[in-house]
């Protein structure tokens, strides 16, 4: 089998082997290397490019049977014009939870190229793809990337370690690390070369993970595989973390800084318990997320075979059961993708974000926002409508972060984002104060001048980034 893998990844962060030793890996950071005439690595352009130009350099006997495209929300690797006579698999990497239009980009790309299967790192984003009618959508945290094996340290030299970036995309990390420092809790680590990071974990009793935006990231596996007790920020059930790891059993989760500090103190006083949990976490990671486990699951899913765990098939994700059956429905789904991207960016930057939904806003939005774990969403609707129409749907979709207020409260309550409709604004508009940082009009029509004027008069300015999104004028 000739497997071609197109990737946006930097070589040091990629696995030595994605799937098979005979594969050809192509990327903009890769050099050209041929073994006996067959490309082992190929340098290919970044971003969008015509892959036929790549295959023009390849010997006929090396043409691909299977193509994997590894990309993410930045679409830094988006080969187009993929050949039709081979299996095409899309691996969507972890960076769909921040940045500019990450999900919209991915959806547009999937529409353009006819993939036979889509594997997503971020489980909680999968439902948009299933809803839009793409088939064979699977979850694979970490995709096919296993954590490199390093020699395990026999001695624990440190208590708490943290490794990873602390840049502009990680405000929560900075906040939590500073808070721990103020409590005189010593943390070793920082932004280290990968091998050093893994060795540090192996030498540490505890490893701290702070997700960028509520996602199950590689740190979960890097920490547990190397024997440290993982302290992970609480993720929503839609992340999939709880399908494998449970708090107090194989990892420790914390809701906020105070909870983290208390739990660090607790396990500091109960080292045997800490060791027991760390060992169980390690065993789970080795069982389910080793290279061979991932590869076997990957092949099984492609061939519709048995996997060692059902979680990858997303059958338990209630939102994945929704299908947009008409073009209008699909347009509505895409509108919800746009709104979700605004909401997830708010969630990334705020510790306790609040989003309000006006009564006419589709409850599907609330189901979308359910996976933003620290988000409080509030729907302003009368109790009867809530009990008969909204709540049953929320229960079915396992939404736990939604509450209700009376409609009048929309004008006085504050939020980071108000999602409303043209109809709601007809009554709300004149009463709208400056209590909502942003307003997004679900069914916005730029030709509807009165609505636009109402919002402008209320002190909002239109955002170019998304039609129907208005933000409070800071001046």
């Amino acid at each position, binding site marked *: 089998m000739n497997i071609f893998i197109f990737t946006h990844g*930097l*070589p*040091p962060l990629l696995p030595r082997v994605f799937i098979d030793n005979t594969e050809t*890996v192509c990327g903009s*950071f*890769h*050099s050209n*290397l041929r073994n006996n005439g067959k490309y*082992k*690595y190929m*340098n290919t352009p970044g971003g969008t490019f015509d892959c036929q130009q790549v295959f023009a350099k390849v010997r006929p006997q090396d043409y691909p049977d299977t193509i994997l495209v590894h990309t993410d929300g930045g679409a830094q690797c988006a080969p187009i014009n993929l050949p039709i006579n081979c299996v095409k698999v899309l691996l969507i990497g972890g960076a769909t939870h921040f940045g500019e239009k990450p999900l919209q980009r991915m959806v547009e790309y999937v529409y353009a190229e006819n993939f036979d299967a889509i594997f997503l790192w971020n489980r909680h984003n999968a439902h948009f793809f299933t809803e839009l009618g793409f088939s064979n959508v699977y979850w694979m945290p970490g995709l096919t990337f296993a954590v490199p094996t390093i*020699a395990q340290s026999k001695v624990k030299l440190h208590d708490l370690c943290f490794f990873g970036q602390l840049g502009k995309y990680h405000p929560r990390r900075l906040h939590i690390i500073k808070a721990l420092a103020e409590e005189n809790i010593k943390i070793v680590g920082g932004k*280290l*070369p*990968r*091998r*050093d990071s893994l060795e540090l974990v192996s030498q540490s009793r505890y490893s701290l993970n702070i997700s960028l935006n509520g996602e199950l990231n590689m740190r979960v596996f890097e920490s547990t595989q190397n024997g440290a007790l993982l302290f992970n920020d609480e993720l929503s059930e839609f992340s999939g973390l709880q399908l494998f790891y449970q708090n107090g059993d194989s990892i420790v989760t914390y809701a906020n800084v105070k909870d983290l500090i208390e739990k660090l103190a607790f396990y500091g006083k109960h080292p045997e318990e800490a060791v027991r949990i760390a060992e169980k976490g390690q065993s789970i990671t080795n069982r389910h997320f080793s290279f061979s486990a991932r590869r076997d699951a990957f092949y099984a899913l492609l061939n519709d075979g048995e996997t060692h765990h059902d979680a990858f098939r997303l059958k338990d994700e209630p939102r994945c059961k929704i299908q947009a059956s008409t073009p209008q429905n699909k347009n509505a789904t895409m509108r919800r993708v746009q709104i979700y991207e605004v909401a997830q960016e708010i969630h990334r930057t705020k510790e306790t974000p609040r989003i309000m939904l006006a009564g006419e806003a589709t409850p599907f939005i609330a189901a979308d926002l359910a996976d933003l774990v620290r988000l409080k969403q509030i729907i302003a609707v009368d109790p009867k409508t809530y009990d008969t129409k909204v709540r049953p749907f929320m229960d079915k979709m396992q939404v736990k972060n939604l509450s209700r207020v009376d409609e009048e409260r929309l004008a006085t309550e504050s939020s980071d984002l108000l999602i409303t409709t043209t109809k709601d604004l007809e009554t709300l508009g004149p009463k709208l104060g400056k209590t909502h940082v942003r307003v997004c009009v679900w069914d916005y029509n730029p030709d509807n001048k009165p609505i636009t004027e109402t919002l402008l008069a209320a002190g909002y300015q239109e955002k170019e980034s998304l039609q129907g999104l208005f933000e409070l004028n800071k001046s």
Partner: protein
Amino acid sequence: MKQPSQKKARGVIYVYWGDTVEGELDRSVNSLQRFHSELPFEKIKLENNSTLLNKARMLELSPFKTTLFLDTDTMVMDRLDFGFEKAEQHGLACCINECPWARRYTDIAGDQIEYNTGVLFFTQKAEAVFKRWEEIAHSINSAMVFFRNERILEMPNNDQAGFSQAVVDTGFNPFVLPLNWNLRPQWQRTFFGPIKVWHDRSEPPLDLKSWNEDQGLEQSILKYSGDHPDFSILK
């Protein structure tokens, strides 16, 4: 001395004396094991009154068929298989010294090349070089004068003079490895690709480790360190 047939295949030796180098020796051993956990190593401690000139005994002291000798102030930063292969092919693989002019030693003239003996891959094929090195190590005048901060200082002896002369005397042709295999960061600030051995008491900076993680992979595009003005090693 073990007969060649009794020796283990590949291995690493450290030859040292005194107690002050234990810390850097441990550092080197740890770095070796990081990349070559499969390689045996021997720490060979000489009498306390030994000097650099006693390093010439390394072939005699080695229990391995193919040996890598490392100075105690080195750190292994990548796989070293190629060095062993070249030693097996040619008998001796080493780097040219940061100052390549052996004429800095009193008894050596002309354009003769000085090799750095801190990282030496060798086999029995190079026996003649090591034998000659041992013969002349204590008799060759290896004193040298040099500048430091505009002052002239003298180093009374240095094993590298004898080694350089031994290569010439025996007519042996060593395989020369690039400076990446024995980087002397005080004097060698720019390079292409990965560093194999860091030869300095200071710690390699974190950005060099990250550089190596990338450049050590055959699929990575090779880079020139001088193109990165923020690289700490340049400062």
